[in-house]
């Protein structure tokens, strides 16, 4: 009995000392940025066993709500911070440093057995997704007359995600404006499952999730019908995104670091690690990394604690890498 209680006490001591030692970094936000942050967090924790990094998925909007309430240290975002969120942060005196970490292409996908869709134009996508389409555009042959007379089933990220915001802005022309009768889920794996098991499905999400499910999905080239940035339909491949021809569905993605947390040594170490390894890791998990210069500039911004967003609270479609670098360099 006695030995038991002694062992018990030792155990408690051991646990509590381990508890005290480990420091926690809280990250939450976009499911699109999640794979990169998760990969970085994993590598980082291997090198720094005392630090625990938790990465949540609440969507960009949900992430910023927690971030601006001071609940998280870092927020993953698949679009720049919005004006309403800037104000929210301001109310709670939360300042932040904005760091672009990669480029993402939004992939438009159909079932692999779908043999009629060879490409889609932005206009056709708009016709499918705009609010006026609700209850009206129901069949494939309403998009192009020679497509099947079958119901079209749409899949997309939930209304809380930055991917949804960006897609509606880029395709419909107004953020948050889309039809409501599509299958919406914050979990991209649900969308993969939905499209992969439904011949008449069409959906969109970050190209990285496509990379992991290549054999279960078919990528659709998108044509914006502007010859200035690539003629004809374009696929979201590395070169097209970097050259800026996969428009309007390519965008930079970010992490936002709380100014208050930035003074903690573990956060400094994490961000430093992120900027130095984020490029390689983002490529590994299926994203398009930024030029090395961008990460240097980012780290520089972080070290100088340049607060605020270079986008002024507005979402913007078609920000190229050059453009991004220029804005960041300022």
């Amino acid at each position, binding site marked *: 009995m006695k030995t038991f209680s002694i062992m018990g006490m030792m155990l408690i001591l051991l646990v509590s000392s381990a508890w005290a030692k480990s420091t926690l970094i809280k990250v939450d936000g976009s499911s699109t940025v999640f794979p990169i942050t998760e990969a970085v967090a994993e590598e980082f924790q291997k090198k720094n066993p005392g630090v625990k990094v938790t990465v949540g998925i609440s969507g960009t909007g949900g992430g910023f709500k927690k971030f601006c309430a001071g609940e998280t240290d870092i927020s993953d975002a698949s679009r720049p911070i919005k004006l309403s969120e800037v104000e929210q942060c301001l109310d709670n005196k939360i300042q932040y440093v904005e760091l672009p970490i990669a480029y993402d292409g939004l992939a438009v996908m159909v079932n692999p057995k779908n043999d009629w869709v060879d490409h889609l134009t932005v206009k056709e996508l708009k016709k499918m997704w705009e609010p006026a389409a609700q*209850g009206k555009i129901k069949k494939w042959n309403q998009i192009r007359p020679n497509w099947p007379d079958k119901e079209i089933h749409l899949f997309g990220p939930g209304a809380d995600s930055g991917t949804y915001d960006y897609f509606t802005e880029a395709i419909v022309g107004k953020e948050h404006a*889309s039809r409501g009768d599509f299958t919406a889920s914050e979990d991209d794996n649900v969308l993969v499952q939905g499209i992969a098991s439904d011949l008449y499905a069409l959906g969109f999400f970050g190209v990285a999730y496509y990379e992991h499910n290549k054999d279960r999905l078919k990528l659709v080239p998108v044509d914006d019908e502007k010859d200035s940035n690539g003629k004809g339909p374009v696929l979201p491949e590395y070169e097209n995104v970097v050259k800026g021809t996969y428009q309007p569905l390519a965008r930079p993605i970010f992490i936002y670091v709380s100014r208050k947390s930035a003074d903690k040594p573990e956060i400094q170490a994490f961000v430093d690690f992120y900027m130095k390894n984020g490029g390689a890791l983002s490529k590994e998990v299926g994203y398009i990394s930024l030029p090395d210069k961008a990460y240097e500039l980012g780290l520089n911004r972080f070290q100088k604690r340049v607060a605020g967003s270079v986008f002024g609270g507005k979402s913007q479609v078609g920000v190229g890498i050059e453009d991004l670098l220029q804005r960041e360099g300022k």
Partner: protein
Amino acid sequence: MVEGALFLSALLSVFITLGIIGVLLFETLSFFGEVSIIDFLTDTQWTPLFSEKHFGVLPLFAGTFLTTFIAMAVALPIGLISAIYLSEYSSDRVRTTVKPFLEILAAVPTVVYGYFALLFVTPLLQKFIPDLSGFNALSPGIVMGIMIIPIISSLSEDAMHAVPTGLREGGYALGSTRLQVALRVALPAAFSGVAASFILGISRAVGETMIVAIAAGLQPRLTLNPFVPIETVTAYIVQVSMGDTPYGTIEYRTIFAAGMSLFVVTFVLNIISYSLRKRFREVYE
């Protein structure tokens, strides 16, 4: 002392029920302060999370109705037939072994049923119905029916088993076959219990959440086609409460309005079940 404690715990559950109704009512009233009840009941679109908001609850109820109908179409015949078999035909040994196994069906976590529907039943059905979408009402409906079988079979069997043997013997004495006794003597005599089990099954199907949230598609649309994605009232409530809809907004209150309407439906069902039980109860001896 003992009586007081028992009384208090009985009272507690009453107060909890009243508290739930109170919260529902309060939030629902503030919802209807902003959205007219006529819109709520007649608009055919449900898009409270999007920029063009419509608050027509019909698509959600169409989804609930559809999945409930399919579930009952599966559970009623199978449940009733197994109840008749267990009560009228099987030997006592079969009855005492089979019944607990049937009841295990009710003990499987619904999340397991949900993935069973999504990853097993749907692909299986797609072999016969090529046009079936990956998310649809049919597969969760069927699986929900399987889940409800024990509610119906077990309660109906209890009711039929309680019918006095004298009645059956009277039937046999008049020269009836076993089937005639089962269907024309035992079943009518146990009608109140059987009907109550049906309604309990329907309530269960209407309120079922996890299976439809996983396998039915989260896509509110006004249709009675079982092959396409739909969304039920309960699945919508889950979708909103798992997302990051801020507290106190109109989007947030929609879940209370939806929950209230659902509550009204199950409440009415329970009242029907109660009155059925009272009205058709056959008291013997």
